[in-house]
């Protein structure tokens, strides 16, 4: 069993065979950095719990394609802030399947949004002048139909 410590002090136990779905953890184990426990200062407890839920399910139900598909669909039904936290965690922990799933989910959620809504989600301040933006929208009329 491997012990993981989240940034806010929560402790989680997980089987090594499951934990190595994270390439980051796998390398730490291989480099013998995992004697007692592995500190994960970039992931908070709530997010780490969710990530572990994902990798546990994907380890135990490995061949059940249909089951995993419906699990994944339910798994991403979280608020957007949590979704971004999971993306950052999946990136840091290098879990490709989870990163693909969450990035695709965000892509599907934003693809039909307006420009203003996307700015809000990514916390972006518009740096075009009104004239520049108007011209750009005009040049891209095909994208706004």
């Amino acid at each position, binding site marked *: 069993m491997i012990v993981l410590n989240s940034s806010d002090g929560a402790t989680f136990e997980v089987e090594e065979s499951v934990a190595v779905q994270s390439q980051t953890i796998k390398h730490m184990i291989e480099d013998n950095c995992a004697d007692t426990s592995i500190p994960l200062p970039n992931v908070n407890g709530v997010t780490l719990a969710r990530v572990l839920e994902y990798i546990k399910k994907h380890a135990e139900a490995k061949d059940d394609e249909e089951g995993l598909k419906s699990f994944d669909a339910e798994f991403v039904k979280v608020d957007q802030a949590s979704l971004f936290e999971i993306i950052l965690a999946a990136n840091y922990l290098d879990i490709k399947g989870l990163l693909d799933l969450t990035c695709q989910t965000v892509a599907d959620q934003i693809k039909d949004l*307006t420009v203003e809504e996307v700015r809000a989600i990514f916390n*972006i301040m518009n740096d075009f002048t009104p004239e520049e933006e108007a011209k750009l929208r005009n040049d891209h009329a095909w994208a706004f139909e």
Partner: protein
Amino acid sequence: MSPKKLHQSQMPVAKAALAPNIPEELTVDILLRLPPKSIGKFRCVLKSWRSLLSDPLFITAHLTLHLHYPQKLIFFSSSPVPPSSRSIYTLTFTTADNPGSEAVLQKLTLSENILENTSSKYASIVGSCNGLVLVLGFRMEIGFRDTMYLINPTTMEFVKLPASPLVREAVRIGGALGYDSSNDDYKIVTVSCDEPTSNETSVDVFSLRSGSWKRINSLPYHLDFRSSVFLNGAIHWLARSDSGDHSVIAFDLTCEKFNPVPIPRGEFDPLKLADLGGCLAMVVKQTFHQMDIWMMQEYGIGESWTKFSVPTPNYFYFNDIVCLLGDDNVVLNVKDQKLVVHNLTENTRRDMVVAGIGGHLRYLIGFSESLVSPIYYCQNWRAT
């Protein structure tokens, strides 16, 4: 432009930062997954997004991620109401596995009326590649020049390309479009036959990046230039030697050389080549009741040619095979008047009359959506 209705938990909060700072490589990962229209729209979000989303490297990566069987068709037709001039139309199939749902028809309105300028009687769509479509205006009469337009029907961008100075006037000509991945260049290959003075076929190649034409040595056989397929870095044609032997010839766009492609054994008269889901296909026979199609499942392996038959009940005329739709549907163009989507697994079909069209569906081909910019590839030689 109406905002999509977001689920309550996903509503962006205007003031607070909803998302912690996402590193750029993750933002890029997310953006690469978007369809072309969303990417065009989001170029307006921020200056750095505009640069990123217009970067040729991003566009190429996007193309690689989204390369799949054509989901759209493009063709010429005329409108049902006078003045019924010819225009270019696109047809988007909604979901392939939703029988009965109609396709969406759209007239392509470019900033220049291409068909008027090409003496539209003689213009045709000759090929598509990576989301680009080539329109070629044939010179069938003395005094007309060839014209070529390379269009991206998704972004509405197009360029007019210089005619080949190497082809004499009033010579029959066909064309094809392909991508040279080694040089990141799009190439147009025209095939002309200077009958009756010569039996030979001449092949000329135009490179988009260099803006120049080059003649490849004349070939000692006839290429059937009405039927070309770009696949695996090469343009393929049906060919016939003087003795009447059939073959398939591939013109590799990187080394610009011809290579033969093994064809199935047996006696048959090939009618047409097609690209079915990335496999080279050859239509060999058509009767009132069925169409025989050979598909090369593994490119270059002669033994991998597999024959299958598509029933074509009561279709009197040649069914043009257009493209694959989804995994197992074949789109047929019946007499240029209606489309039939035939499901290969279940052997069922649905007819699709294209409403909103007055005339025939001419030069119908499939294409996929992409952001590839013809102007970008011509920038070294083209006056802006």
